[in-house]
Every structure is written in structure tokens, then in C-alpha cells.
């Protein structure tokens, strides 16, 4: 039979394509397969495999440009580089065709240990450390927790994935800790603010030219609140005045709407940013350009006052929470019981007893948690 003989010949003729890379030992081992199995595999195929050209170019690339990327240089990124890009050295874009993807710095070992030392051992506030090192407050808190965990694991003699950590730190960009006399490189912008969903709609709001219209008024317009009284508005010299008020007394922020639609009036960005104190600091610097010591002292005093108020409030809330929860430890049981107070009245459960915010599970309301298209993961972030 002709086809069988032909197929055997073709399969033999195709083999050199697989061994286009002479150096690789694993590929060159293929011809040692028994001839009978090859004959079975390619019995009726007379065409060359379609990816041969691609494979050839791949091996070409691996032997030329790709060879440089085979081993990384410690302390430098080992990313593909766009050949049209002229700038040499490192680069933080791993995907040459996607310039918007930037591989961000991670904290170096020394920097994260420094964060832990400042927060836990020197008892500095998370806010102050965040401003000093230019690291987000959430990241500071996470670092403190993780270093704590690492220390405990070390103390317990548990294994750590150190070779992995070392390899990652060698290959991705890191933010180093400043040496003595150097200026600390900021890790990330710390005062960024996500766009608030209330500011989404475009509102046409005519204002007479004679009236002053600031960020405070814009926030009230966006949240549908009536304009401020003139006497109150005149007292606000700068929107950051409100920040101090909001920190010292969060209940000073007005509410609009009723029932389910009740919401706080949108505050200007000066109030909502993570570090509103820095605005005041900058204003002070502009007001007293020559007196750096005085500015620093004013800032320190302000920070101290606000931190005191904040800790007091946190402690009060914590004690209130603890007072409302009753701990019971029954004898001979494996578990503790925590009784918290709940209020089941017409206000908390709604008129029909089925309000979505009522404590407990609902009657006559399907849970819908298995329905298609019901999104269970959070779809919005509280700004």
C-alpha cells in the first residue's frame, strides 16, 4: 500500500524541524523514539506542522535577544524592552506593547523594618510615619501587622519563605530606606482621593457673580443640600478650616435626606483627603515664609491636639462597644458566648418587619444569593 510507505517517509522528513535548536538536549532526544510509534502518530499526515515558522523565529529570538534575559541582574528589573525605546537600564514596564502598565515599587526590607520600629518601638502615630516616609496609612498598618506576624513566626521557629522573598526583591523595583543625610524617597502619593460618586452627575447651577462660590458650596450643591447661611459661610476663610472641625467633631457634618436616603453633605476635598493637616501646614508656610520653626511648632501642636481628640473618641467607642457586649464563659464548655444588644422595633425592622437593615434574617424575602447575575463581591468603595 503506497500511503503507508509515503507517510513513513514524510514523518522522517519532518523530524529535523523539531531539532532546529541544536543545543537543547530534551528536543534532540525525540528521534530516538521507536520508528513504529512515529509511523502510527503521523500515518495520514502529509503536511508540515503549521507553527514551524513561528517555532523557528522563537528559537532565533531565544538565541539572540532573549539570551540576555535568561538570567536577571540582582537589583535590576529583567523586563522585555521595546527595541524602539532608546533609554537603557532597568525600565519598569514589563509589557512593551502596553506602556500604561507600570510595575510599581515595593518596600525594601530595611524600609519595612524602619516602619515597624517607628510605629511600635518609638510609638509614633501611623499618620506621622506616613507623612515622613511618603507611604499610605493603610500600607503602614499592614506592614506593622505583617512584621509582627513574621517576628512571631521566627520566635516559634516556623519556616519562612526567605529564598522566595530574596528573589522577588532582586527582580522588582524597590523603594530603599534613605541613608543618613539623604532625603527619603517617597514610596507613593499619600494624599490621593478617589472620585466621589456624588460628583458624577453634571449639574447646571447658575450663581451670581457677586456671590462667592467655593468647594464647600459645590459639595452642598452635589448632595442637594440648601446653601449655607451667610453668617456661617463668611466664617469659613478656607475650605481646610472645615477639616479641623470635622476631625474634632465628626457630628458637625450636616445630614440631608430622610430615611433610607439620608446622607452626609459632601465635604470639600480638603476635608476628605487622608492628610488634611498638610493643607494647613502649606498655608502656614506661605503665611510665614521666614519662620520655619514657628510653622513646625504650629503643625506639631495641631497634630497633637487632633490626635488626642481622635484617641479619646476611639477609646470611648471601644468602651461603649465592650459595654454593650456581654461575655459568658460557661463551665465545662468549649465555647464562649457573646451577647450583644439588638433592638427589634418598628423603626429598626421597618413597618412590615422586612426592612433590609433589620437585625436577623428576613421572612418572606428571597435571599437571591444563588441567583444568576447577583453580584456578591463588593461593587463600591466608600470614599
Amino acid at each position, binding site marked *: 500500500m503506497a500511503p503507508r510507505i509515503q507517510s513513513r517517509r514524510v514523518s522522517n522528513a519532518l523530524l529535523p524541524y523539531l531539532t532546529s535548536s541544536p543545543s537543547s538536549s530534551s528536543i534532540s532526544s525525540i528521534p530516538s523514539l521507536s520508528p513504529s510509534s512515529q509511523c502510527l502518530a503521523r500515518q495520514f499526515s502529509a503536511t508540515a506542522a503549521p507553527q514551524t515558522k513561528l517555532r523557528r523565529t522563537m528559537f532565533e529570538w531565544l538565541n539572540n535577544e532573549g539570551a540576555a534575559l535568561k538570567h536577571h541582574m540582582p537589583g535590576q528589573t529583567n523586563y522585555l524592552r521595546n527595541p524602539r525605546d532608546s533609554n537603557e537600564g532597568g525600565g519598569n514596564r514589563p509589557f512593551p506593547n502596553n506602556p500604561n502598565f507600570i510595575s510599581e515599587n515595593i518596600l525594601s526590607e530595611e524600609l519595612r523594618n524602619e516602619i515597624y520600629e517607628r510605629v511600635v518601638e518609638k510609638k509614633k502615630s501611623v499618620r506621622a510615619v506616613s507623612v515622613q516616609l511618603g507611604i499610605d496609612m493603610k500600607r503602614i498598618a499592614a506592614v506593622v501587622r505583617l512584621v509582627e506576624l513574621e517576628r512571631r513566626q521566627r520566635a516559634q521557629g516556623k519556616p519562612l519563605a526567605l529564598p522566595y522573598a530574596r528573589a522577588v526583591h532582586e527582580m522588582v523595583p524597590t523603594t530603599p530606606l534613605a541613608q543618613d543625610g539623604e532625603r527619603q524617597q517617597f514610596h507613593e502619593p499619600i494624599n490621593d482621593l478617589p472620585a466621589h460618586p456624588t460628583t458624577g452627575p453634571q449639574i447646571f447651577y447658575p450663581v451670581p457673580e457677586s456671590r462667592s462660590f467655593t468647594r464647600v458650596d459645590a459639595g452642598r450643591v452635589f448632595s442637594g443640600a440648601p446653601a449655607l447661611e451667610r453668617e456661617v459661610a463668611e466664617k469659613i476663610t478656607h475650605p481646610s478650616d472645615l477639616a479641623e472641625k470635622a476631625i474634632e467633631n465628626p457630628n458637625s457634618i450636616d445630614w440631608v435626606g430622610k430615611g433610607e436616603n439620608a446622607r452626609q453633605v459632601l465635604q470639600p476635598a480638603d476635608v476628605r483627603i487622608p492628610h488634611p493637616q498638610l493643607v494647613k501646614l502649606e498655608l502656614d508656610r506661605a503665611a510665614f515664609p521666614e519662620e520655619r520653626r514657628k510653622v513646625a511648632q504650629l503643625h506639631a501642636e495641631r497634630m497633637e491636639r487632633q490626635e488626642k481628640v481622635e484617641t479619646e473618641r476611639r477609646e470611648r467607642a471601644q468602651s461603649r462597644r465592650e459595654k454593650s457586649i456581654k461575655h459568658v*464563659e460557661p463551665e465545662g464548655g468549649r465555647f464562649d*458566648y*457573646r451577647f*450583644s444588644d439588638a433592638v*427589634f422595633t418598628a423603626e429598626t425592622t421597618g413597618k412590615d418587619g422586612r426592612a433590609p437593615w433589620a*437585625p*436577623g434574617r428576613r421572612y418572606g424575602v428571597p435571599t437571591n444569593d444563588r441567583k444568576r447575575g447577583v453580584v456578591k463581591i463588593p461593587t463600591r468603595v466608600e470614599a
Partner: protein
Amino acid sequence: MVLRIRLARFGNKHSPFYNIVVAQARSARGAKPLEVIGTFNPVPKRPTNLYEENANARPYKEIALDRSRAKYWLGVGAQPSDPVWKLLSMAGLVEKKPATYEKA
């Protein structure tokens, strides 16, 4: 008819969750009760072991209870079921139920 303070099971398979309810004794478990006065999560929660002081803490079960409503319904003669009796006695609203057997 007898009023009972009892548990009504909610939650999915293998993840029970109970409302503590006041209902007519002979009504179905899933029927709409007279009133919901609390919740009981029987799945023990473990305190996070991130902090030293939590390392040896025991797991706990969470109960939310409207104490004033519970007192009212006990006052008008509602009878707690055995599991609810246990919870209410821990909350200090009723005496502990005497055991029907003596421990050796």
C-alpha cells in the same frame, strides 16, 4: 395556645443561622413568627491570631438579643424551648434549667 420562644433555622446547607423568635407553639418552624427577638449564630468564630493576647483565646458564638422584649414575653408566659432556655439563662433572664440527671 402556648407561646414559645424558640429558634427558627435560616442559612444554607451546612451553615446554620437562627432567629430567636416568639411564635405559637404549634406553628411550623419556617412560618412567620409573632416577633423576632434575636439571632444566634451556632458556628463558632475564632478570634484572629494576629495579636499575642488572642493566641489562647477560646472560640466564641455570637448572640444578639433584645432583652426588653425577651423579658416582656417571658413575663406574659411564653415558654422557652430547651436551646433558648440555655441561651436565656446565660444572658441572665431565667434560672438555669435543672438537669434531669445527676453527674456522678
